[in-house]
Structures are given as C-alpha cells and as structure tokens.
C-alpha cells in the first residue's frame, strides 16, 4: 500500500468518525426539543478540529510505526489524487450553493451550518473512497 493510499484511508476514517461523533452529541442533546434549539456550535468546532488533529497525528504515527516505509509519490498517485479531489470538489460546491439558497430563504442558522458541515464531510468521504477504490482497482479511461 502506497503512502498516499494510507493517507486516503486515514482521511476517510477520521472524517466518518468525527461526523458520527458530532451527530451522536447533537441528537443526544436534542431529546424532546427542536433541533434548531440544540447548542451545536461547540460540538461542530470540536469535531472539525479533532478530525484535523487526528489526521495529522495518525500520519505522524504512520511514520513512527514504520519509519522505513517509502513516502514516495509518483505520477499515478498524482492522477488518483486529482480524480479523488475532483469527485470531492462537487460536494463543496453543492454545500456552498445549498447554504446560499438557505440563507436567501432565511432558514435557521442551524440548518445552514449543518448543510455546509455535511457537504464538507461528504466531500472528504467520497473523495477518499474514490481514491481507495482506484488504488484497489484501476484508473478509469475516458
């Protein structure tokens, strides 16, 4: 497994776990109250920050656990990286457009913040899944 494939796995796992933790915290706090009344900002910021820190720590940990593993990156890694980023990018745009339309329609801040967060997570997850699938299979030819 190349270093870049390991990085894609780390991104996938941290994004899924951080978002799952956020959803669990918000739903637990909600109880019988409306979701828009739940204090979500702290949990959102902590899970975003936690995912970034976990990503960095796990990548450093990879180097510590196996210091002789190659960190080389070649043209195939770059092509797969571009394809994954291209797939993920679509969700960043969907999130931005959704948030803009929700703001224009004067939706609650809760929904605007959450649609942006969800689309960031989908961007990371689908981008990483694409990279892992292509590493395991073949780069598509158009």
């Amino acid at each position, binding site marked *: *497994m*190349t270093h870049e*494939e390991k990085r894609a796995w780390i991104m996938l796992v941290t994004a899924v776990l951080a978002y799952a933790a956020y959803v669990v915290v918000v739903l637990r706090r909600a109880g019988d109250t409306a979701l828009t009344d739940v204090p979500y900002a702290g949990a959102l910021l902590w899970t975003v920050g936690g995912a970034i820190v976990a990503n960095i720590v796990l990548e450093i940990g990879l180097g510590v656990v196996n210091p002789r593993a*190659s960190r*080389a*990156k*070649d*043209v*195939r*890694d770059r092509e797969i990286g571009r394809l994954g980023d291209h797939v993920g990018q679509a969700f960043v745009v969907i999130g931005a457009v959704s948030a803009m339309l929700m703001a224009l329609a004067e939706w609650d801040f809760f929904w605007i913040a959450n649609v942006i967060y969800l689309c960031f997570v989908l961007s990371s997850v689908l981008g990483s899944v694409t990279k892992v699938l292509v*590493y395991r*299979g*073949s*780069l*598509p*030819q*158009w």
Partner: protein
Amino acid sequence: MVKPTRVTNRIRALRFERGEMTQAELADRIGVTRQTVIAIEQGRYSPSLEMAFRIAHVLGVRLDDVFQYPEEETP
C-alpha cells in the same frame, strides 16, 4: 465513458528474461513506486507514453515488444 484499458504488456516475462529483475528494481529505474509497476503489470494502469518508453529502455527492448494493443476490427 469509463472503460477498461485494452493495452496489454509483457513486463513480467521480460523482467524474468533480464536476470529476474525485481519489481522494486524496475520501479527504481523508471522513477515510480513498486505499486505502480504492479498496477501496470496487472493492466490496472496505463502508463504515459514517456513512462512506457522508459520501461522499454530499461528492459532493453522496443516499445511494442513490451506493450500491445489489439487490432481494430475493420467493418
């Protein structure tokens, strides 16, 4: 439309004909990772024309001795 590559290759056979050159050695000489050589050998990745020429040079043969492409059927 996404379609599988039709390019086939004889890299594995040629490596063994060249004194059992390892995948790691070939990868090192053409400047890619061993995983990329594995993907090329298994037909999961089509190298660029430049990389294909480098592979042929390292293996000491012509490009079309390494890579083959099936003839198009004429109607």
